[in-house]
């Protein structure tokens, strides 16, 4: 495939997030969307009249509200503007970023606002996922988004039960420690590493090795990101964060990949392709932070090896040595990640928003100590849909 060149550079010039929580009884959907939109506009010091186009994203069958972008336009401010809607499952928020980046890079629009939202408490997420599965076959089998037991058992086979279970809990508690520093995070439990042993044995089992404590939350919340062409970004912002590249990969098989020969993961495939075309040989050395879409501590741990193109137990050793902590070699999910907050249509957009804040140095209490010049963000959804997005502080590649 040809190097996917952009017509022009694109910068992120504003981000806004609501706080994420289990319930938002004090506001309806447009009001929640509006909170994030207003925050993004304030962050960019812009009025809505400066936005050419709005890209809206959620999983409409989770709230079971058709054409949500129309109702939500009360909150997005899209009236009279171009508007598009994205609905790609867990990946929605990342696809929003890809779409907004493409819309600006193409030259079609100078400023695009991407807005991802979900109010999971207003629908039934597992019911939605289960009822939406392929009607010809998988609908009889689908059980919500609880797929990571197979990754857990594979890691237990490879690294031994004790080491794998400890590493997964270490990952989980590390994420909680990061979430404790992020006032917008949904689940902030105040866990300590000494509790690992206890939690490994007492947290309710969801599926096989996957316990409640390992898994992501169901959250309400919204995230808005404003993209602008290089010229506009430079005139509107003193610290634009550049979107260097993005890649989107998925496969049609979801249930039939657990045989004796396993295909390359969409994570490793995506990482190989995007790093190769950007000349990045050692992603672990290159990137300063990674905001990963980690639906559970098992998948999060497993995918580190894939995304960072590591081999053997390198990802375990890095985790055990604290290299993914806020002051480590590659701080992972300073925000607390998806395990802490998961408003599905906003989740992957939040990875990019948080990565952009880290590049700017504006993340607040969970800002990493070192300078962040190169950031990586990922999205994930059903049928192993994987998106990787690279952000840069300087326009120098």
């Amino acid at each position, binding site marked *: 495939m040809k190097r996917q060149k952009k017509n022009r550079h694109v910068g992120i010039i504003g981000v806004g997030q609501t706080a994420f929580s289990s319930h938002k*009884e*004090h506001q309806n959907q447009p009001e929640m969307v509006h909170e994030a939109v207003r925050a993004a506009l304030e962050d960019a010091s812009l009025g809505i009249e400066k936005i050419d186009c709005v890209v809206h994203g959620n999983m409409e069958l989770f709230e079971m509200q058709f054409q949500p972008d129309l109702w939500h336009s009360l909150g997005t401010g899209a009236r009279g503007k171009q508007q598009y809607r994205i609905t790609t499952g867990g990946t929605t928020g990342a696809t929003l970023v890809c779409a907004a980046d493409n819309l600006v890079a193409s030259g079609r629009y100078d400023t695009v606002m991407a807005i991802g939202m979900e109010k999971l408490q207003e629908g039934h997420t597992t019911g939605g996922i289960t009822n939406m599965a392929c009607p010809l076959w998988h*609908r009889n089998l689908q059980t919500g988004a*609880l797929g990571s037991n197979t990754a857990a*058992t594979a890691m237990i086979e490879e690294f031994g039960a004790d080491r794998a279970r400890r590493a997964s809990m270490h990952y989980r508690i590390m994420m909680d420690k990061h979430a404790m520093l992020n006032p917008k995070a949904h689940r902030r439990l105040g866990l300590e590493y000494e509790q690992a042993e206890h939690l490994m044995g007492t947290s309710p089992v969801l*599926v*096989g090795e996957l316990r409640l404590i390992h898994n992501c939350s169901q959250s309400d919340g919204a995230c808005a990101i404003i993209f602008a062409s290089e010229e506009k970004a430079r005139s509107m912002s003193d610290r634009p964060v550049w979107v260097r590249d993005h890649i989107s990969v998925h496969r049609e098989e979801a249930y*039939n990949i657990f*045989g004796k020969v396993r295909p390359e993961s969409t994570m490793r495939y995506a990482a190989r392709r995007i790093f190769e075309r950007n000349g990045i040989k050692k992603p672990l050395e290159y990137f300063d932070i990674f905001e990963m879409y980690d639906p559970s501590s098992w998948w999060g741990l497993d995918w580190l090896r894939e995304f960072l193109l590591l081999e053997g137990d390198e990802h375990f050793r890095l985790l055990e040595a604290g290299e993914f902590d806020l002051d480590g070699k590659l701080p992972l999910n300073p925000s607390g990640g998806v395990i802490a907050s998961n408003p599905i249509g906003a989740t992957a957009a939040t990875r990019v928003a948080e990565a952009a804040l880290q590049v700017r140095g504006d993340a607040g209490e969970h800002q990493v100590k070192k300078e962040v010049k190169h950031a990586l963000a990922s999205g994930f959804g059903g049928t192993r849909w994987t998106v990787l997005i690279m952000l840069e502080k300087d326009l120098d590649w």
Partner: protein
Amino acid sequence: MTVVQRKGVTETEELISLRCVNTIYQRFATGPVMGRWFSGFRERRFLANRCPRCGRTQIPPREICAQCRVRVEEFVEVGPKGEICEIDVYYYASPDPLTGKVRETPYATIYILLDGATAQETFAHRLRREDIDEARKGDRVRPVWAEETQGRFKDLLYFELDR
């Protein structure tokens, strides 16, 4: 109830939420390929299809091989017995869209390499509830069919250990 500030006055305001239940009946065309799969069910047979280029068996059959981007027209019978490659034992009580009821837990999904299938292609289905504690990766399983098969999901009840 929530406390709101309005023009400097603190008031208590009732928060009203609406509740509703949706029940939707649907009908889906299976097409010639999945139609063949379901017609095989009437005779209690698993009809996979084989990619003419890479040779992999697809279970259930698919219209094309997405890797080779070619139409897949050759059907091959696989199974009915096979080997367990992975087991997911569910304790989370999820809704069953075929009945609308909450599934009884625990239940298990197994990923089965049916006899005659190529090594990467597993077939997922339920394991007999009574076999959950005993079943291990590598164990042999066989299908259990409904008394009357009509060419639908429910013809295939579950798999059980083949002992």
